[in-house]
């Protein structure tokens, strides 16, 4: 092993210099956008699901095809993302849903909305006979009446919470991991160097076994 490092010293220096150079190059590169992985982020506000889709790197998915399924694979609705990469829809049924975004030429992303996040939709909606359009359209300004029942109070609280949480959700959307981080990059390069080391080890084990066999003869 030692002779290998000595005889190949320039090669090793060059490899190290090359890898370090590439890593530095990548750190300095003003990479802003990409076309690759599609990141979907969806959140529920009352009876509406909002979503934003980005490519890894932060570029918005404009005009991406959105299909919403229930977990059984039945298609509930479909649409397209707007210029901000956003897509919103009213919750059609109180079931867990899976959003799938197809951004064309092989790009796809998905997000699952668990059923316990969909709290703004009245329980009645799960009953099969319930009319589709029974969600309150503009209940926000309802004056608190003396005869409020539990459901109404809950709805008012939820709406207020949704409003208060809006900036927080906005922040979450903004700060979502946009692309690979430095540890990811260095980790990958480390694996490649490790594989090379493994190949070198196998080779020299094989070689030293051969030398050992020759000595015996």
């Amino acid at each position, binding site marked *: 092993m030692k002779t290998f490092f000595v005889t190949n010293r320039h090669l090793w220096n060059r490899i190290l210099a090359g*890898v370090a150079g590439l890593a530095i190059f990548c750190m300095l590169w003003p990479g802003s956008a*990409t076309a*690759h992985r599609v990141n979907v982020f969806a959140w529920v506000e009352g009876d509406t699901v909002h979503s934003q889709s980005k490519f890894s790197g932060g570029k918005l998915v404009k005009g991406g095809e959105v299909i919403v399924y229930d977990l059984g694979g039945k298609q509930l609705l479909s649409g397209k993302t707007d210029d901000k990469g956003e897509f919103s829809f009213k919750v059609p049924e109180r079931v867990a849903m899976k959003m799938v975004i197809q951004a064309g030429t092989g790009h796809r992303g998905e997000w699952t909305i668990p059923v316990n996040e969909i709290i703004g939709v009245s329980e009645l909606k799960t009953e099969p006979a319930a009319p589709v359009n029974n969600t309150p359209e503009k209940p926000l300004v309802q004056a608190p009446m003396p005869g409020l029942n539990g459901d109404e109070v809950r709805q008012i609280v939820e709406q207020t919470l949704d409003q208060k949480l809006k900036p927080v959700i906005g922040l979450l959307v903004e700060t979502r991991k946009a692309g690979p981080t430095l540890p990811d990059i260095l980790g990958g390069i480390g694996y490649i160097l490790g594989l090379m080391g493994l190949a070198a080890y196998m080779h020299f084990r094989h070689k030293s076994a051969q030398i050992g066999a020759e000595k015996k003869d």
Partner: protein
Amino acid sequence: MHISEGILSGPVLISGVALAAAGTAIGLKKLDYERIPRAAILAASFFVASLIHVPVGPSSVHLILNGIVGLILGWGAFPVILVALVLQTVFFQFGGITTLGVNTMIMAAPAVFCYYLFGGLVRKRPGIALPAAFACGGLSVFFGGIMVGLALIFTEENFLKVSYLVVAAHVPIMIIEGLITAFCVAFLKKVQPEMLQK
């Protein structure tokens, strides 16, 4: 050029895996010990090249570098690209585990093809070698786009349209990769000409 999980149908995925496995087996057989370090450098370059983005119109694309990998390694491009793609999938979530075979074919098959087309020319004098290296870098990306169209032929149904979209988006990348490949070849010819030998 990485196709995500959940788009392709089973037969496409399976044939991708079979072809990529065959290519990798040939590549490993041809990759003798002296070439391991250079294969590793190229794998590392391929791995990080995908992070170098070039904004193109509404979308943006990244470097691929399959041309130079093919030119230096020939069939060795298969194992190298496979390893780099596995790591890109695991660390960057580019592509997907089930699409590894198809993605390897998309990027490695054009690399080997261009190696046969241009490998001989590149070893000749600079007047021929540099244009050939440029063409090798550019065409590897071009054929990659065609391969994406082929892979999606059973899902997006319009081979010409998909190929056109992918190739059109990658035109700047073709030019950049052509330049990078020509630059690498010029550099290697001066510094370490044995890297380009068969």
